[in-house]
């Protein structure tokens, strides 16, 4: 029997659009069907070698529903998210393209959205981005022309109204599933659920949270979210990840604003024989705890520099319940590329005179 997320004509073929869906992506299907989704974050390479991206993506194959292509996370220079998405879609992966408002103004962003959608990106995640002071180029000019909210709105307008922010028409709108980030673990705590409501109003269809180490605090947040009825309007994916050691956890707590790590977590890691293993176990325990919370639709595994553990974590926590997330599938543009490759292989000679003749008679 064909898998529910497969094209009936073959697993390798791209998905057909479904009614009521804003994208053709698998992530949206999985979430809308009520299954527990798993996404992961690809550590962007500091190189111009496509192999680096393929290698890092291959680790996730068959374990996650979407790969986040980060946009210079922490304001550090890496391969761009557009570039990573171009490589990933070419290979048939399902990336979630992150766009940070830090580096690009509204002109560049809208262009990137169109380009990404044309390459076959079906999920876009709108972020504000870290301040430039956090990264390796603190002297850079912070752009922040849009903020995450107006970015969400911009992409939603492009998709639903087929228009640029300026009102100019698009001939074919980008079909994308829109995401945003939430951080329930930073003040002002009372405002955080309302901020999610604002994001949903602006266009967010799914959200991924910051690292969750404080489950009681997250439960409190989710209670408020449910009271506001937001869990029915948007899919909430909880950010989790393994900590390599108590020292790393301590360092993150003191140096990365916005990540809240309670003392109990550090103590638990310190007390362990094998801290790395304990970190992984802690991550699995947290997944098992949060997946029971009403309104949680999935997890977002951020295993920075421990990507090889994602498969283990997903497997051992059993969140997939035997489901196989995507394997690589064909990109809508692939047949054209294949045809072109055929022509190249055939070595069809190009007659310059003939081409000039054609060009002369068909001016554009």
């Amino acid at each position, binding site marked *: 029997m064909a898998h529910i997320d497969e094209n009936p004509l073959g697993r390798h073929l791209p998905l057909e659009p479904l009614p009521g869906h804003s994208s053709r992506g698998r992530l949206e299907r999985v979430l809308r069907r009520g299954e527990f989704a798993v996404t992961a974050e690809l550590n962007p390479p500091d190189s111009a070698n496509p192999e680096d991206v393929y290698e890092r993506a291959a680790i996730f194959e068959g374990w996650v529903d979407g790969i986040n292509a980060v946009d210079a996370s*922490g304001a*550090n220079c890496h391969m761009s998210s557009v570039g990573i998405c171009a490589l990933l879609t070419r290979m048939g992966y399902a990336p979630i393209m992150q766009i940070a*408002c*830090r580096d690009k103004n*509204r002109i560049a962003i809208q262009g990137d959205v169109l380009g990404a959608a044309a390459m076959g990106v079906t999920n876009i995640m709108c972020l*504000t*981005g*870290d*301040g*430039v*002071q*956090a*990264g*390796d180029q*603190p*002297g*850079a*000019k*912070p752009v*922040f*022309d*849009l*903020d*995450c*909210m*107006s970015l969400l*709105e*911009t992409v939603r307008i492009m998709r639903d109204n087929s228009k640029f*922010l300026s009102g100019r028409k698009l001939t074919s709108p980008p079909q994308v599933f829109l995401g945003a*980030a*939430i*951080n329930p673990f*930073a*003040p*002002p705590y*009372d*405002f955080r659920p*309302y*901020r999610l*409501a*604002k994001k949903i*109003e*602006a266009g967010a269809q799914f959200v991924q949270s*910051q690292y969750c180490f404080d489950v009681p605090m997250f439960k409190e947040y989710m209670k408020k979210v449910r009271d506001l009825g937001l869990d029915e309007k948007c899919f909430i994916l909880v950010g989790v990840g393994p900590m390599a050691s108590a020292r790393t956890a301590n360092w993150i707590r*003191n*140096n*990365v*604003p*916005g990540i*809240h790590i309670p003392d109990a977590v550090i103590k638990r890691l310190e007390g362990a024989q094998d801290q790395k293993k304990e970190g992984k176990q802690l991550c699995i325990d947290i997944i098992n705890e949060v997946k029971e919370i009403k309104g949680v639709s999935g997890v977002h595994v951020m295993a920075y520099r421990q990507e090889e553990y994602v498969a283990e974590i997903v497997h051992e926590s059993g969140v997939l319940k035997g489901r196989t997330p995507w394997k690589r599938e064909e990109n809508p543009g692939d047949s054209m590329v294949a045809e072109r490759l055929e022509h190249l292989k055939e070595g069809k000679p190009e007659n310059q005179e003939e081409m000039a003749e054609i060009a002369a008679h068909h001016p554009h």
Partner: protein
Amino acid sequence: MADPKPGNAAPAKKAATGAYTPSGVSPNRRARRSYTIRLWAVRHSRFLEWFYSRFADMFLLLHPLWKALGYNRVETPITFVERNVKGLLFDCRMCGQCVLSSTGMSCPMNCPKQLRNGPCGGVRANGNCEVEPDMPCVWVKAWEGSRNMVRGDAIMNVQKPVNQSLRETSSWLRVTAQAAEAREAAAAAKDA
């Protein structure tokens, strides 16, 4: 070696190597050394809301005067007054499209990321900014201020992106002109 700003991993790493790391470097222009007056404005957001609504009414009453003098001609002196009054009270950055009434009288343009729709995820546990560790987060204050205000729930509205071409222009005059226009349009519709 001066202690580099907490929260900035890269400068801390650089400082550890003994290399020169200037202290207090920030990509955003800092308006003032202390935030006393700005915080006072947030604490008195209710009063300022009341005051501004009277003030806006007065400005609208003066519409015939602005029109007689010409909005273009009064723009310069009014902008000067607006810049200095709001600069003192709110550390105004003259974006030209004031949203103070929707942000609890805490100017969002003072946020290093210039967020106009709520706090980012980097707010420190003590409620300070991730970029400027000694500055109380503009949006933590905005939330506090909005809770005191009668129309504080305007903080829930999604704000449009800043129109950069309106920078350094008077928000007061624009609001007045728009209100007058709306009033005239309403009157015209009534007559018709």
